[in-house]
């Protein structure tokens, strides 16, 4: 059994993951070093990568802040009734089961230029849909459960006793959080951050719908790859994809590392 299953497992990984990865890595060099350099130094590529970077930063900051706070409220908050908590808890997962395209569509439907809210914001000169804020919103929507789902179990596992001990020793909420709670959930949060970065880096469907994919304006790295492929410009697509792959693999390594650290405590 063993003699059959191990090679079979290797085969699955080889066919499904390793060979495609290698193919991307080599495909980018098809037109030589110059081709690759050209592919990633095109103005639209530079802009798209910048855009992606900006989205990653903004989304990761917001999602971390709100994700951690919501987790604390959902696990510790006595001011929320248990029924309400259960309801909120099940809503958290919804973005997992919503197609990113639909996620994007939702934002267009609510905040698009033809809606009341959208028109209002546009009149005060704040464009949401087909602009940066909309893209951030769409990415926030799809990444929302990642942080909460990482932090909540950790909070549940560490229990309340250490926090109570801190309060009997004279520490108030804020001190307790930074001195006691934070060091215990830190690795869970870092893991959540890595997942959020990976997801916001790679988000495609939702951003495509919300951004309108306008070159040099609202185009991100992934939507640029899509456009390049649609234009049969596979080598250029490959160049940008290679950068994304490099980031993803790096993130995967951080993911493994933080998973191990998370398990230590």
């Amino acid at each position, binding site marked *: 059994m063993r003699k059959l299953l191990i090679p079979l497992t290797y085969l699955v990984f080889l066919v499904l993951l390793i060979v495609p990865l290698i193919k991307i890595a080599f495909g980018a060099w098809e037109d030589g070093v110059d081709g690759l350099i050209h592919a990633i130094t095109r103005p639209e590529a530079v802009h798209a990568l910048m855009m992606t970077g900006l989205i990653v930063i903004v989304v990761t900051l917001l999602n971390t802040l709100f994700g951690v706070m919501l987790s604390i409220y959902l696990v510790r908050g006595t001011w929320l009734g248990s029924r309400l908590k259960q309801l909120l808890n099940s809503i958290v997962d919804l973005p997992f089961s919503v197609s990113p395209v639909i996620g994007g569509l939702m934002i267009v439907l609510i905040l698009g230029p033809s809606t009341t809210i959208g028109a209002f914001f546009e009149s005060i000169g704040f464009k949401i849909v087909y602009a940066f804020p909309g893209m951030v919103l769409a990415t926030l929507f799809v990444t929302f459960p990642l942080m909460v789902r990482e932090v909540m179990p950790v909070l549940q596992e560490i229990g309340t*006793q250490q926090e*109570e001990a*801190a309060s*009997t*020793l*004279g*520490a108030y909420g804020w001190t307790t959080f930074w*001195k006691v709670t934070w*060091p215990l959930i830190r690795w869970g949060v870092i893991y959540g951050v890595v997942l959020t970065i990976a997801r916001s880096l790679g988000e495609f469907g939702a951003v495509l719908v919300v951004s309108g994919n306008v070159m040099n304006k609202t185009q991100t790295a992934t939507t640029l790859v899509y456009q390049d492929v649609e234009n049969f410009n596979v080598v250029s697509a490959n160049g940008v994809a290679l950068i994304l792959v490099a980031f993803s693999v790096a993130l995967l390594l951080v993911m493994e590392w933080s998973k191990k650290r998370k398990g230590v*405590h």
Partner: protein
Amino acid sequence: MHIEVTGLNKHFGQFHAVKDVSFTIEKGHLIGLLGPSGGGKTSILRMLAGLESPDAGDILFHGRRVNDLPPQERGIGFVFQNYALFKHMTVYDNIAFGLKIKKQSKEQIRNRVMELVELTGLKGFEQRYPHQLSGGQRQRVAFARALAPEPQLLLLDEPFAAIDAKIRQELRSWLRDLIERVGITSIFVTHDQDEAIEVADEIMIISQGRVEQKGTPWDIYKQPQTPFVASFIGESSIVENIHELRGFENASDWLNTKALIRPEYIEIGQLYEFPIASATEKGRIKHIHFRGSEWMVEVEVRGNTLITYRSLEKEVLHPGDDIVVLVHRAYLFNDHDSWIMENRMKEDPMPIHI
């Protein structure tokens, strides 16, 4: 610290966890809250600490109402059941935590921590993390951490529950000595009667959210005021037909009265060993169990199985042996009342025989 609690009540949803609890505790006393699990002991402790707020009732420290005072300002030390040590801090940092919150100087903190480390016998372990310590050591750290900010009241929730039986004994007397030396008012929760009897100055028996009895261990043992206390403290056998036993015929004056008989109320032996034969019953040995330092004997008397102990020095009995049993006294109870009844024949044998 002088503590006064009046009319304390606490509900968890539908569950009435603490019912009308009132008591006072004198300064410097060591009190044990004893009772079965889920009886509300820990809830009372947590309300004293301010970790739980009562639905009704007052808690007074030194005559001052502290109900609305958050735990941070009550000046109490709390030792949790699983110690709740800060896992990411060393022993030193754990003990120093409360002092740092008080913004004491580095020098002061250092002195106080080292003093406590010395006191709790943790010297050399200051830089270890909790997971590198044994259960007993962790307990000492938790204790030192709670004492560091010099609280006026120390609360301990099942302080020995998570420790091996062997070390538990040692820690108990250690804790007792230490609390005596520090001179701090302390309350601890336990479900282990030996622990409560051995450590506490005074015991409060708590069951189903009520205080059943409060008093010194000896008082509670000698004069249980409710059937629950009588059956919870010490060992005992229940006898349904107590009025059929010689010397206790008067029990039939009260309807539906049962009795609890403790092992030490019972003497067994051959007939010639008892001066007053009329006070004794016939019995038959059912089982004997070797208990290390003595025999535990199950003896059948008029359809009841009574338990008693017998010295190893005495003649060895065997199951099936016929034997004579003297019941010195019994704890009688019915639905309304409970009292202790001595063996009538034993007290006043003379008139009948002459």
